[in-house]
């Protein structure tokens, strides 16, 4: 199973990948497509990814989490065009107890947002488009229209 997928993310498959009899705490994080950004209505968005590096970086982040906490972690992120409320990313962390599972899940989503080469292109109700850029004033940079 790759960390990047063009298909709908199947939560039971992810949970099954990390669940075990000795792990009594399972924490999941779901990131959904929001219908607004910086006060602007969003109609849909498109994820672009540097796929080979997404796989490599996600492997590193999972290994870090599993080294830091006694847990197992997995995740998947969508690519391509997504509609409002579609699930864009799911993280699942399983551990013997809830503390480690919460901490590991939080670590993985924060590191993913910081390090994994995936980009959002947003399409707005007024017909304009922009790349999301957390470092830019207003959080976006205008995109070349297609």
């Amino acid at each position, binding site marked *: 199973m790759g960390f990047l997928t063009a298909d709908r993310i199947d939560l039971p498959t992810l949970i099954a990948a990390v669940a075990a009899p000795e792990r009594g705490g399972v924490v999941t994080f779901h*990131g959904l497509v929001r219908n607004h950004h910086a006060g602007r209505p969003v109609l849909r968005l498109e*994820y*672009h*990814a*540097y796929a*080979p*590096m997404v796989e*490599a*970086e996600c492997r590193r982040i999972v290994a870090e989490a599993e080294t830091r906490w006694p847990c197992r972690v997995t995740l998947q*992120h969508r690519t391509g065009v997504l509609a409002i409320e579609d699930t*864009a*990313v799911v993280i699942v962390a399983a551990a013997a107890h809830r503390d480690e599972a919460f901490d590991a899940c939080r670590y993985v*989503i924060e590191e*993913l*947002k*910081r*390090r*994994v*080469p*995936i*980009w*959002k*292109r947003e399409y707005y109700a007024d017909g304009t488009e922009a*790349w*999301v*850029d*957390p*470092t*830019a004033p207003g959080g976006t*940079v205008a*995109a*070349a229209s297609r």
Partner: protein
Amino acid sequence: MSPSHGTSVRVLLLARYAELLGTEQLDITIPAGGTVADAVASVRALPGGHLLPPRLLIARNLVQAGLEDQVGPGDELAILPPMSGG
């Protein structure tokens, strides 16, 4: 150009940067023993290259790299906009 005169490097441009330069992939030659900074300078000299921001995030063979890192034959560099996944 023969290998003694330079190092051939593939440079990928991702997401918005592909739009700025009008291509997703470049094959450039930098001086033998050159660095990531040399490759970036070559890209900045291309049409649209001046639109790239002053500070760039670069990956070398799928790992984030520094400007001073040496680039070898067959290396793949990628110029990455600020990430916005999740």
